[in-house]
């Protein structure tokens, strides 16, 4: 594709020496389009920050190539890359005021003092930090420093903007407000941005596509919706989504016009063969042993369903999270009405074949999503 802006090919990052090596990033390949907002999502130590720092030039690339706008970055010093970055630890210059910190990178440009001042004010308005512009970093809160650091990065006219946990320190309300504004600003200015976060809500709200990372590997690189609907493997399935996907290990069998999933804990789920495509049934039967996954909001109540016992029921103000045990295994349901069930109550639940994800138990790869087989 011609609109590929950042092209990462087979990149590895190995820290340390041969006898105490830490392999932080393994064979990472991903292509980011111009003007796209991409999130690197994963738990601590998954390699997302290492990836960001390799792009910025603070870490060397152990293997592979990183190209930005067609130019190979690997051996280019940070100063030559024209990349802007907001740091997780803010990293504002202590002797400068917030205003000067934000304006700093613009001073080297050819903009007039008035243009710089206007830009700084627009940025400060957007980030709600106008009132602290003349203070020094040490005298403002962490959240304010973080916004100043974000402003310092966003204000630059760079080829790529790297944002490392840019809103981690902010109050939830402010975070929700700023997400909208920042996304609008990024899109309006045609900025290509890579965001590192472990906050799914932030990744979902801001990103065009999310790269889920785990153990140094890229697990899946997709739009937020497709990540949820079609997880490529068991890791993405259980990592993306709050509360996480319910999973059950099961063996698969077919009897005349029924497909049966015998859960390890003794319960059987029986479906008509017509509920799935022939390919799905064939693939599942070939594996014999699978993991099935169901999102908490896709589990429905049905008087003819399986019996589960409620362990806890929490009303979060807009949805109920019900934890229950099904044949000794825990299962979580999400309902949008306030559920009356108490701990110890029996409920009857049903899994809808359209919402069942089947995974290969051995490899973890997805076999099917609902009736559709994974190509």
């Amino acid at each position, binding site marked *: 594709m011609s609109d590929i802006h950042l092209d990462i090919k087979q990149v590895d990052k190995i820290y340390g*020496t041969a006898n105490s090596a830490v392999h932080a990033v393994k064979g990472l390949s991903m292509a980011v389009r111009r003007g796209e907002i991409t999130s690197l999502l994963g738990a601590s130590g998954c390699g997302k920050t290492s990836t960001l720092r390799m792009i*910025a*030039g*603070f870490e060397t690339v152990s293997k592979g190539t990183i190209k930005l706008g067609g130019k190979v970055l690997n051996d280019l*010093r*940070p*100063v030559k*890359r*024209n*990349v*802007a*970055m907001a*740091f*997780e*630890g803010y*990293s*504002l*210059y*202590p*002797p400068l005021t917030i205003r000067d910190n934000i304006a*700093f*990178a613009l001073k*080297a440009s050819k903009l007039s003092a008035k243009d710089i001042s206007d830009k700084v004010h627009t940025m400060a308005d957007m980030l709600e930090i106008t009132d602290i512009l003349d203070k020094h970093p040490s005298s403002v809160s962490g959240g304010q420093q973080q916004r100043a*650091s974000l402003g*310092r990065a966003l204000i*630059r006219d760079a080829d790529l903007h790297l944002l490392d946990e840019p809103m981690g320190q902010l109050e939830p309300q402010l975070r929700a407000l700023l997400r909208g504004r920042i996304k609008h600003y990024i899109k309006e200015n045609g900025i290509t941005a890579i965001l590192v976060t472990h906050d799914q809500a932030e990744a979902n709200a801001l990103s065009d596509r999310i790269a889920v990372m785990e153990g140094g590997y890229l697990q899946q690189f997709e739009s937020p919706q497709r990540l949820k609907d079609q997880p490529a493997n068991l890791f993405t399935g259980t990592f993306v989504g709050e509360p996480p996907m319910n999973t059950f290990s099961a063996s698969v069998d077919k009897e005349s016009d029924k497909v049966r999933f015998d859960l390890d804990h003794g319960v059987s789920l029986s479906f008509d063969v017509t509920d799935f495509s022939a390919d799905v049934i064939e693939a599942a039967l070939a594996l014999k042993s699978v993991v099935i996954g169901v999102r908490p909001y896709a589990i429905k109540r049905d008087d003819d369903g399986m019996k589960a016992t409620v362990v806890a029921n929490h009303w979060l103000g807009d949805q109920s999270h019900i934890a229950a045990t099904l044949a000794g295994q825990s299962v979580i349901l999400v309902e949008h009405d306030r559920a009356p069930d108490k701990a110890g109550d029996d409920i009857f639940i049903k899994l809808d074949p359209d919402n069942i994800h089947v995974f290969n138990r051995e490899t973890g790869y997805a076999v099917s999503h609902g009736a559709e087989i994974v190509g």
Partner: protein
Amino acid sequence: MEHQSKLETVLRGIALLLVVVFFMFPIFWIFLMSLQTNETILRVPPSINFEPTLSNYRALITGKLETSAASLEINFLQNLWNSVFLSVASVSLALLLGVPAAYAFARHKFKGSEDIAFTLLSFRFAPPLLVLLPLSLYFQKMGLADTYLGLIWVYQLICLPLILWIVRGYFEDISPDIEYAYRVAGHSWFSTFRKIALPLAGPGIAAAGLLAFIFAWNNFIFALVLASADKQPVTVGALAFITASGIQYGQIAAAIVMSIAPTLALALYAQKYLVEGLSLGAVKG
């Protein structure tokens, strides 16, 4: 602060006074001695009733030492100048070499970096007398004995490890991300070092420099062995007051007052940095 009763305040005041007297009395007594003649100093019992005289200071400044037996030439002012020159030059050179080295050790972990840093520190472990004999032989062969250059070089054994290790801690305390943020905004590593790292480590560098200055100023043994009279600092020059006709206590006291004056002035001027600098490095996590 918690509330203190009057008694506690008084007791605390007395305790502080005792400490001050304990530490300041010798200096105060030396100051009094410097204003007396040898006769009044040595009378028994000692008394603070005396007629003050500036003769000791006059002797130091004019370079003529009148004893009961004879008149001696001393070059105390030359010694003082030597001390100033040697200390300033040594500390300047140590800062010039040590600060970039400290930055390198703090920021770049390369193979053997810890070993090199530790070797430099280990110069402080060896007793000076142990290295002096071979060193003086080498210096005589190389023509460095009795030269300012040779002394400044040897003084690096005192100053360089001190500066290197203290300043390194300061650089390590600065988040590397602040420097990355500057570099990513289009600056070379050298301008990052100058514009970001150096100013941020400023108090630490000042504190280390001051400490090194005091250590260099107080050094005695290197200059005693490696330099002759016209290159010796005050610490060694004071030996001239032990004369054939007795020890000139009055002049020694005056020499002490004059020789601690520069370091005292410097320490008072920089004391804010010194305390801030040394404690910040210790407290910062």
